[in-house]
């Protein structure tokens, strides 16, 4: 037992190091002296980088924002964290990092590098690019008492997934995508003075502004908006829900996407050449509202809505594919899909993916299904059919693949 005690004590000492104070473990912090950095920003300046941190100690009412510039993100942040603020700022609870457009264009890698290397920061920090203003100005504009700026940003991040306006990629996801594909999507936001999504008390509110397409070398910074954003979410399987207005004859059907399944099938010819990429999307939707006159219990009406849904989603997906191929940047990860499905065939192609991808025919098929209309005559029992619905057929075929 004595040997075991000595061994574990030695192991513990080796792992913790020896501090000068009363405690042995050198990581000691008094809890009342901690300031949690909930969010920070980075903006490019002519002489370096301006960093702002938004920290709280206890209640959000005590939240404050401090900033510091330096030749690099690391030095600016280091000086900021060492400032005699009366409290010790820690980055382990940082949820989002906002970077200005200029910073993203020129020094995105520096931001990712800092997050990766600094021991306290988590790799799942959400990365956002601020359009239209500096990140620091947006954060300052958001700073109110209730809810806090950090909560407003976090709220937006959760909100995006639900309304299908975008998705916040984490630093880890962006870094992995840059490493694997040389390109990544980053969610963009902008400050607005009107149409506040939240009851924020700051001067500004925040709204989604599509995706930025960033490259490994930081040289390319393009933006996706509207249908391209929707198509990207669809093809990346990151769309959780979205309400769409579909016009069929004189009626406007608002449907809410419920279930989405995206399946890829790279097609190779007999010589092993990649001839096309088939993308099949199964989309289930429920009817949210109806403006105009239509009988949704009729098969013909339902099929018309389903056709309209399919066409709308197909157009969005094709727009995203077209933009991706036009830029020559595979941000939809078609290379990854091919590599996962047919690693041997991909390796045998003998050509670089950057040569194949821009001219690769991408065939998109969308099967939309109106699953629930909530019409009184369209109860599950009445709607029950003997033969398989198109949705069920597609789901089955996807399973087979």
């Amino acid at each position, binding site marked *: *037992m004595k040997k*075991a*005690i000595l061994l*574990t*004590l030695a*192991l*513990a*000492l080796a*792992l*913790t190091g020896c501090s000068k104070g009363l*405690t*042995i*473990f050198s*990581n*000691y*912090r*008094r*809890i*009342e002296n*901690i300031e*949690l950095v*909930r969010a920070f920003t980075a903006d490019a300046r002519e002489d370096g980088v301006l960093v702002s941190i938004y920290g*709280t*100690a*206890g*209640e*959000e009412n005590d939240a404050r924002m401090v900033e510091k510039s330096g030749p690099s993100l690391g030095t600016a942040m280091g000086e900021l964290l060492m400032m005699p603020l009366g409290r010790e700022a*820690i980055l*382990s*609870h940082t*949820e989002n990092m906002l970077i200005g457009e200029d910073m993203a264009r020129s020094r995105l890698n520096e931001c990712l590098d800092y997050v990766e290397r600094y021991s*306290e920061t*988590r790799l799942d920090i959400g990365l956002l690019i601020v359009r239209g203003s500096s990140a620091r100005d947006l954060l300052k504009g958001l700073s109110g008492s209730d809810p806090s700026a950090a909560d407003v940003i976090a709220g937006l991040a959760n909100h995006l997934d639900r309304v299908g306006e975008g998705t916040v990629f984490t630093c880890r996801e962006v870094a992995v995508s840059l490493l694997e594909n040389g390109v990544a999507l980053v969610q963009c936001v902008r400050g607005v003075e009107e149409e506040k999504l939240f009851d924020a008390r700051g001067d500004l509110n925040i709204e989604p502004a599509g995706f930025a397409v960033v490259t490994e070398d930081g040289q390319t910074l393009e933006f996706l908006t509207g249908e391209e954003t929707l198509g990207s979410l669809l093809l990346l399987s990151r769309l959780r829900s979205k309400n769409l207005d579909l016009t069929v004859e004189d009626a406007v059907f608002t449907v809410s996407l419920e279930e989405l399944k995206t399946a890829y099938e790279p097609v190779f010819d007999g010589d092993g050449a990649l001839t096309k990429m088939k993308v099949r999307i199964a989309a289930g939707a429920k009817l949210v509202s109806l403006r105009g006159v239509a009988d949704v219990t009729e098969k013909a009406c339902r099929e018309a809505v389903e056709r309209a849904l399919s066409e709308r989603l197909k157009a969005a997906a094709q727009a995203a594919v077209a933009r991706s191929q036009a830029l020559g940047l595979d941000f939809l990860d078609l290379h990854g899909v091919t590599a996962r499905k047919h690693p041997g065939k991909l390796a045998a192609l003998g050509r670089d993916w950057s040569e194949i991808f821009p001219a690769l025919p991408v065939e998109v098929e969308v099967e939309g299904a109106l699953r629930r209309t909530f019409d009184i005559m369209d109860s599950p029992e009445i709607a029950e059919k003997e033969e398989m619905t198109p949705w069920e057929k597609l789901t089955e075929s996807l399973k087979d693949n």
Partner: protein
Amino acid sequence: MLKKEKAPPEVAENAPVTVAALEAVFETCYDFESRDLHIGGDASNKARLCFLDGLVSGSDVAEQVIRPLTDPDRFAGVRGSQAIARLLGGSVYVYTAKCRETLGDLSADLLNGFCALIFDAERRAVTFEVKSPQRRGVDAPKEEKVVKGAKDAFVETMKINTTLVRRKLRNPHLKIREFPLGQRARTSAVLVYIDGFTNPELVAEASRRLEKIDVEGALTSAVIEENIVDRHRSPFPQVISTERTDKFCMNLLEGRVGMLVDGLPLGFLVPGTFSQFMKVPEDHSGHFIVASALTLLRYLSVALTLLAPAFYVAVAMYHQEMIPTRLLQSMIEAHASVPFPTAVEVVLMLLAFELLQEAGIRLPSPIGETVSIIGALIVGQSAVEASVVSPVVVVVVALAGIAGYTMPNIDMGSALRLCRFLLVLAAIFLGMFGVAMGCALIVYHLSSLESFGVPYMSPFAGSEGRHQSRALLRKSMTVKRDREPELKTGDGGEAKL
């Protein structure tokens, strides 16, 4: 200056029986009584009646011994060895009569509630069992209460205890072997087991350890427990002690060896393993699903009572990144007005909790309960309001304390309390590494323990894997279950208990 008292004469165990020798043994004993009896009413035919007042029933002595002995119709002209033969043959109305020829046996009988009739000329005595009925009656268990279950508990009188066991296990193979304990107190202890079923090696080892006990007297449970366990320095209990007769008998049926000691209202069972200390008698009276869920809850309580304060100290002092943001914000805010560091705060609260618990136990029942309530409610709340401690610390320490109270065995609860303190100290100095190392040491210690050759952590360690669920879940009574293989019972097969 006090005069040095004369040392009491040593009882020569094999000395012949005489009145003078016996009176010398019990010289200056306030409760020793002796008187001459005229056998058959003949003044020339005398025998000496001796007994210890209080240990014997006066009316029984008068009615069952003196009256028939002095009756001329029965004993007229009967002298010496003839009288002894008649007494042993049943001429008096006592069910137990023994002929004693040595002073040691005679003294032992007197101390066990016998009265003795000494025939000086014969150098012999006849002893009759006439024990005083002044003893505590069988009562409901005070500590191990159950709603649905037997309401009889062991008492201080050995005979009553063995009777209670016999009534529950009406089996001729139930053996009760006696071992006198203590050089001076000569306390009677018995080993209880089912012959032909209980592992004979276990019986032999238990007998050997009982015989080896070398103490002045076995008046407390620690005398038994500490003298028969494998590792007496371990704070963890290795002998199951119970006041419940049904639990005692159930363990005998599982193949354990039981021990009863005169004067102790407890039964002891060996081997004691960790999983046995997690069981309560209610497990066998409630529904098996509920019993299984509650057993799992008790294991969770072990983790909570051991780790909650240490984990809190570690994350609050060193690993703040492990705490969810909202919770950390609340903790920072709550701690802002507290002058003490987290370590001091937690140690203070733990000590206060132990003080309250100790005060509650030591004080008489109604006052003790009041002290506990006042301590918990008023002192705790006041401490928080006075910013001496933060509310989170009160919650954590109280949670650990309450979880500790779910331990079915008080000794196990005490051991876990001790370990809780050590883990908190490890957390203070080494953070989560210290907690991990402390846990590793506890597991190492528990895994290295054995109780009468059975691994203490069986069936989790040192046992077959398929038996592990046995410790955590109770099967339905309708399902036959495997016996504990570590106990190596005679049948070694399935049991339906």
